[in-house]
């Protein structure tokens, strides 16, 4: 195990102060399920580790009518999965959470950590992307709000600066007659990464689809929206032909790699199949 100095700040301001002071030589730990493996393998060798688990209020999951949902930086994936309000208002988020690793990992891992780690195959980003989520980054100069769609810049890379703490995730309130779905394609039900992850959301008004969002995981350098595919359906009736065309465009527009989990061609085909299924499930939830 790599050796480091440990700090446990008791406020967000204190945490940001430490991050400002130590910069690139510090890593933040919330659940630690990713970082501990990296420290054991010495993939990461920070001189300082800043534990934010004891900061009061940072684990809150709050919903306010007309405002939406806020998920604090240390709220665990399991807390989101089992939250009554998340299940009622954002079932897709609770479901996506339930697909991640095991209960033992979900009781430690945080949604914010799953985002900041910026793994292309992470389970929470596709669902959060189709819900139009944003993240709050707090730094020495104050806070900025970044749409999640603009947060990821590459595998393991984001727009977050070393002196910025992701303090909360914001999800707008669900629209009337809207629905969303996440489909994780992986050989095993537990303890496995997505070969392909597809999330879809849409709202129905007078029989036409609007606010269509499709997000893909594990088929590009970052989790990303499939805007070309969304445009196929936006403002149109959800006919079988339209859904099939949106799915085809999603498969064409993504840029998967071939690796041990699947070939690029296989991933593309699974994007097509699962985009069609996710859109269908979202439609059923919206109706």
């Amino acid at each position: 195990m790599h050796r480091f100095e440990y700090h446990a700040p008791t406020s967000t301001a204190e945490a940001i102060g430490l991050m400002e002071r130590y910069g690139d030589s510090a890593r933040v730990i919330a659940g630690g399920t990713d970082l501990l493996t990296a420290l054991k393998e010495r993939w990461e060798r920070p001189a300082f580790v800043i534990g934010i688990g004891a900061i009061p209020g940072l684990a809150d999951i709050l919903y306010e009518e007309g405002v939406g949902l806020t998920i604090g930086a240390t709220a665990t994936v399991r807390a989101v999965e089992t939250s009554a309000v998340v299940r009622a208002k954002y079932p897709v988020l609770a479901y996506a959470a339930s697909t991640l690793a095991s209960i033992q990992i979900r009781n430690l891992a945080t949604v914010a950590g799953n985002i900041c780690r910026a793994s292309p195959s992470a389970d929470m980003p596709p669902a959060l992307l189709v819900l139009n989520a944003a993240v709050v980054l707090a730094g020495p100069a104050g806070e900025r709000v970044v749409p999640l769609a603009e947060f990821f810049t590459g595998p393991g890379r984001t727009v977050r600066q070393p002196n910025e703490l992701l303090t909360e995730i914001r999800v707008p309130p669900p629209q009337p007659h809207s629905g969303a779905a996440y489909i994780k394609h992986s050989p095993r039900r537990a303890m496995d990464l997505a070969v392909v992850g597809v999330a879809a959301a849409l709202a129905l008004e007078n029989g036409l689809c609007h606010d269509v969002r499709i997000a893909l995981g594990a088929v590009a350098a970052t989790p990303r929206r499939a805007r070309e595919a969304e445009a196929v359906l936006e403002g149109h009736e959800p006919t079988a032909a339209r859904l099939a065309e949106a799915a085809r465009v999603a498969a064409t527009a993504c840029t998967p790699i071939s690796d041990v989990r699947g070939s690029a061609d296989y991933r593309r085909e699974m994007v097509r199949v699962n985009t069609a299924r996710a859109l269908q499930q979202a439609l059923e939830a919206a109706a």
Partner: protein
Amino acid sequence: MKQLLRFTVNEEPCEIAVEPWWTLLDVLRDQLELTGAKKGCDRGDCGACTVLLDGKPIVSCTTLALQAHGRRVTTIEGLVHEGTPHPLQQAFVDVGAVQCGFCTPGMVLAAKALLDENPSPTEDDVREAIAGNLCRCTGYAKIVEAVLSVAHA
């Protein structure tokens, strides 16, 4: 430099100086001599190191000891009450849900956390609850049977 870790272990207050890079599992096993939690994969994949943190199952090999500061840890040793095994432990014995035994403490604790939340789980619920616990003897059927026998009791 060692730091003071104050937490509750099996209902007893505990104070111990730990290095920041020590895992909770290593502190339990090597410092507190609670060797019920096992080191299997040492990276959160196998569940043999499962303990309860504030009543919820976690992988203690992938948790810094200092993350448990101020919190409540329950290990398999804490399930025995005045020399009497917990009903789940007795059920594992009665049903024969133990082969080599290495995964058993984690299985029992994962099952206890399930039953504490949901006293009447379905078989699917039980299988989901232990999805993070690998048994390489592959004796899952008896384990599920043991958990359900307590649930239905």
